[in-house]
């Protein structure tokens, strides 16, 4: 990731952040449902400078077979960053960070997907981070939910995700790369707005118990904003005038 610039002002006296946003303002978010021909469902998200592509296959046969479960379908998630997606080239093999994020995203999606309807099968979610700029796991989770819905897989809700955090002693919404590197706390939140359930939550950084509660609350409110954009992306594809 990028180097640290000690002179950068994270929050100025007017409450404006280093990239010109207000404290409760997310970056520009563009979500597109569909787009891939071969995948059963797909989505593309631009979340600030993050560019992430998600393809979904399934429910389909499980290979290797011993992984299958006779009671329920299984969800498999691979979160992968391209070598060119970050400042310094990333080695292509999955890192420990990518393996952990894959697991966290899988567990964030599982409560949303009605896997019990497809015993002995697998649903595969492939996440490719083409360009990274802080908050990739949230953007990836948001796009993965849209891709699963696009694949027509029965779901209880979609998971929307965004990070809240603490910068210059202030709780903010949607932590960007600079704020992640130089800020005080970063809390990715994944949330199912209709079911009111938090399915992804991580934190690094120091928060008082009051800030912690506020941070969760800011994150949940941010997820509700993202949720509307997810629904709009699906609406645009299936009910809009676009040709794809």
């Amino acid at each position, binding site marked *: 990731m990028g*180097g*640290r610039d000690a002179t950068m002002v994270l929050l100025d006296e007017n409450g404006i952040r280093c990239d010109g946003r207000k404290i409760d303002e997310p970056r520009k978010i563009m979500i597109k449902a569909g787009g891939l021909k071969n995948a059963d469902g797909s989505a593309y998200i631009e979340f600030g400078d993050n560019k992430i592509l998600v393809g979904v296959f399934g429910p389909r046969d499980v290979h290797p077979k011993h992984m299958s479960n*006779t*009671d329920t379908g299984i969800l498999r998630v691979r979160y992968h960053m391209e070598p060119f997606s970050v400042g310094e080239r990333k080695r292509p093999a999955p890192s*420990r*960070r990518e*393996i*952990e994020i*894959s*697991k*966290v995203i899988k*567990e964030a999606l*599982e*409560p949303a997907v009605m896997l019990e309807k497809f015993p002995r099968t697998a649903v595969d979610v492939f996440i490719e981070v083409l360009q990274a700029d802080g908050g990739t796991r949230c953007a990836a989770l948001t796009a993965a939910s849209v891709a699963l819905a696009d694949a027509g897989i029965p779901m209880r809700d979609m998971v929307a995700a965004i990070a809240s955090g603490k910068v210059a002693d202030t709780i903010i919404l949607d932590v960007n790369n600079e704020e992640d590197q130089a800020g005080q706390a970063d*809390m990715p939140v994944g949330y*199912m707005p209709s*079911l*009111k*359930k*938090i*399915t*992804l*939550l*991580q*934190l*690094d*950084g*120091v*928060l*008082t*118990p009051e800030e*912690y*509660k506020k941070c*969760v*609350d800011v994150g*949940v409110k941010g997820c509700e904003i993202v949720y509307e954009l997810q629904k709009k992306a699906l609406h645009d594809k299936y009910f809009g005038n676009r040709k794809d």
Partner: protein
Amino acid sequence: MTSVSVIDQLKKAQILELLEQGKRVDGRALDEPRKICIEINAIPKANGSARVYLGDTQVLCGVKIQPDKPFPDVGDKGMFMCTAELLPLSHPTVETGPPQAPVIELARVVDRGIRESHMVDVSDLVIEKDKSVVGVFADVVAIDYDGNLFDACSYAATAALLTSKTPTWEMVDDQPSVVEGGDKPLPVNTIPVSVTMGKIGNYIVVDPNGDEWESMDSRITITTDSDGNIVALQKGGSDGFTQDEINQCGELSVKVGTKIREQLKSSQQESQ
């Protein structure tokens, strides 16, 4: 595996039935962790070490402190790293080979809790700026498994770090060389305590044991520091939490963590 899952479902039903009466399988209160036994200096050849029993879960941590090349962009800071591993003798299902996702997550969550609390004062671990710094490596191995390795590994690493002695180095001919009799306690800022809670049905239980671990729908690990701040958190498992539950877990982690911190402190005093 199929036969195992049938037994697990029966166990889960029993665990849930008991919870509805406000009880747990091993008789603990819902917010009560298991008995923690900390045995410091279990490996005298390490710079610091601790064996921790959390109920029947047993883990061992050894700390090695040695000179290392600094990361290019942080030449004015020492290094801290914590790893965790499941030994094949800890459970029949553990296999040899490269670590799988759950173990990688375990290691990273334990490392993150201690790192984000800024427990180890890395700014004090520089031999010569940009040339040579001190690396502190806390390696935890799980020896016997009965659930909740997150907390057991975290307590072992914290106890081992609290009781670690670091040698002193000076630069001789551009190489770090140990100063005789220069051993001193590792500089430490705070005592992080991780508290893992499982959600079974609609019940939150602190420090799930092996059976509860297999039965729970989701879990959350929250690390607090000596000032009562929340410094790291990880949610896991295939279900979600409501916002109220997340707030409740935050409060629980501070409350339960305070008592455990006292125990870690007394093992530090014991070593002096």
